[in-house]
């Protein structure tokens, strides 16, 4: 069988008419939803203008949303027997099971909790802890994001199920490396990184360099240096005709691109840790959408309990809970009290890596209303 011409792929017509795959109750009420009610945390009722109601139960999933097919079958069974025969995965990896009465929704909650999965989210709770896949399949992971997520979920479960209310919604992202596939624009973001510049094997590094100083004169572009986004790698010809390499630590951002193109460059894994970024959000509440800001450049990542990371995250949440106004997300709270004050309260030293940001003006559509 011959491979299809790649250009043919572009001729596909998307999107597919997805509505035809919906369960009947959703198909009947599409675009007719007029109201909603919360029934504790993790259960939401949507009310249609037709009078029909759909109850959705939000279930927290294992880190990186990893399931055995047998577990998925159990969830499907619950959705068939107690729901409307449908469930969905949210972009943050929760499972939402839909049903048509509050009694059934409460029953679903009871059953999935017996299976070992918490029901929570929505309102002033943790909505999700999103995680990248890290070492399971990734070649660039620095820390194991799913196991950090597991440690965080264990410590923060009361905030997910609503046992301890928060000032506002809280999203947490955990990424194993600065590629940030787990996301880095949430209220709390944890991003793995190497913490220091790489080093190289002095005998074998020559396999990644032009053969001789003469080759450099012939204009050859050394890939290890060329891929460095900060020009932290210098390749130079020596007097004896060989080629040397310098890594300028002060310029290196430990992105790992040199390591990707050369097997003889690597990082010291004992220095691997995570950066903590705070305050990202896309909503138009408070000060409007905000980018996340690096507040702690490095926290050690010590498996399996990741005590330091868990302690830092809990401390941040505690301080926010203590001081924030109702509905004030972490970004809005930080903007109100100021990053300098936040650093003072948490005793975080200020370096060039976590300078308090200065945002000019406000983001979001409200600025247009204010002008009008």
């Amino acid at each position: 069988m011959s491979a299809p011409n790649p250009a043919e792929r572009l001729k596909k017509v998307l999107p597919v008419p997805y509505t035809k795959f919906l369960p009947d109750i959703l198909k009947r009420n599409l675009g007719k939803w007029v109201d909603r009610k919360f029934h504790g945390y993790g259960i939401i009722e949507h009310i249609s203008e037709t009078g029909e109601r759909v109850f959705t139960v939000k279930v927290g999933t294992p880190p990186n949303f990893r399931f055995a097919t047998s577990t998925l079958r159990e969830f499907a069974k619950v959705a068939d027997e107690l729901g409307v025969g449908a469930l969905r995965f949210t972009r943050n990896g929760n499972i939402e099971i839909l049903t048509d009465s509050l009694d059934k929704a409460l029953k679903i909650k009871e059953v999935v909790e017996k299976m070992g999965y918490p029901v929570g989210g929505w309102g002033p709770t943790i909505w999700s802890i999103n995680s990248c896949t890290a070492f399971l399949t990734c070649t660039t992971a620095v820390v194991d994001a799913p196991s950090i997520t597991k440690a965080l979920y264990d410590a923060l479960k009361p905030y997910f199920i609503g046992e301890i209310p928060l000032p506002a919604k809280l999203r947490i992202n955990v990424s194993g490396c600065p590629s940030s596939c787990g996301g880095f624009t949430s209220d709390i973001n944890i991003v793995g990184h190497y913490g220091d510049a790489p080093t190289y094997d002095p005998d074998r590094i020559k396999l990644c360099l032009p053969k001789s100083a003469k080759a450099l004169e012939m204009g050859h572009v050394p890939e290890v240096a060329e891929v460095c986004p900060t020009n932290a790698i210098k390749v130079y010809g020596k007097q004896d005709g060989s080629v040397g390499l310098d890594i300028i630590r002060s310029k290196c951002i430990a992105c790992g691109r040199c390591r990707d193109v050369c097997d003889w460059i690597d990082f010291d894994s004992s220095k691997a840790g995570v950066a903590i970024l705070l305050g990202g959000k896309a909503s138009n509440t408070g000060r409007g959408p905000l980018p996340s800001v690096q507040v702690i450049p490095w926290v050690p990542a010590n498996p399996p309990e990741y005590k330091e990371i868990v302690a830092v995250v809990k401390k941040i949440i505690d301080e926010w809970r203590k001081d924030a106004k109702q509905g004030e997300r972490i970004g809005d709270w930080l903007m109100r009290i100021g990053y300098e004050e936040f650093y003072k309260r948490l005793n975080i030293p200020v370096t060039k890596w976590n300078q308090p940001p200065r945002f000019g003006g406000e983001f979001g559509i409200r600025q247009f209303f204010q002008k009008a």
Partner: protein
Amino acid sequence: MSVYDKIGEFLLHLRFKHGVEEFSDTSELANFLAQMSPGEEAAAILSLPGRPRPFLVSAYREGDIFAVAIVDLDDVRTARLKIGLEELEDATSRAGAELFGDRGIAPFFLPIMEKEGEIYFAMGVKVALDVVTGGVIDQLIETLEWEGDTYYERIMEKLASEQQPKST
């Protein structure tokens, strides 16, 4: 963006936007080129095992003659030149033909990008062939690898001499 990012992007465009054929063997490539009709042009990517980046091949058939250009995207070089990015291929092809035309080959530089006053390019050769076989393509690749530095040096010298003001 590094020159290698640029090459990666370029290859993605060739593969997925333009649907350029890709071969992992010089004989397969030769068969593909040999099937061209007179007046037909073709482009192909030659990805030989064990190499990080492929060769780019462009061919045109006129009568029984095949004009073939092969560029080694793994042999990327840089230079500060007085000529612009757009003129580089023409100027170096002309220089290459004048210097090495008697050997039936015209080495040239395929421009890729310009950054901070330096032009980045890949080394290539252009030839006219009456027979295209896998062996001939292997030979061209080998020649490009062995003679690359000589081609580079001689073409750079020629460009420099052409840019010197002529004495009266």
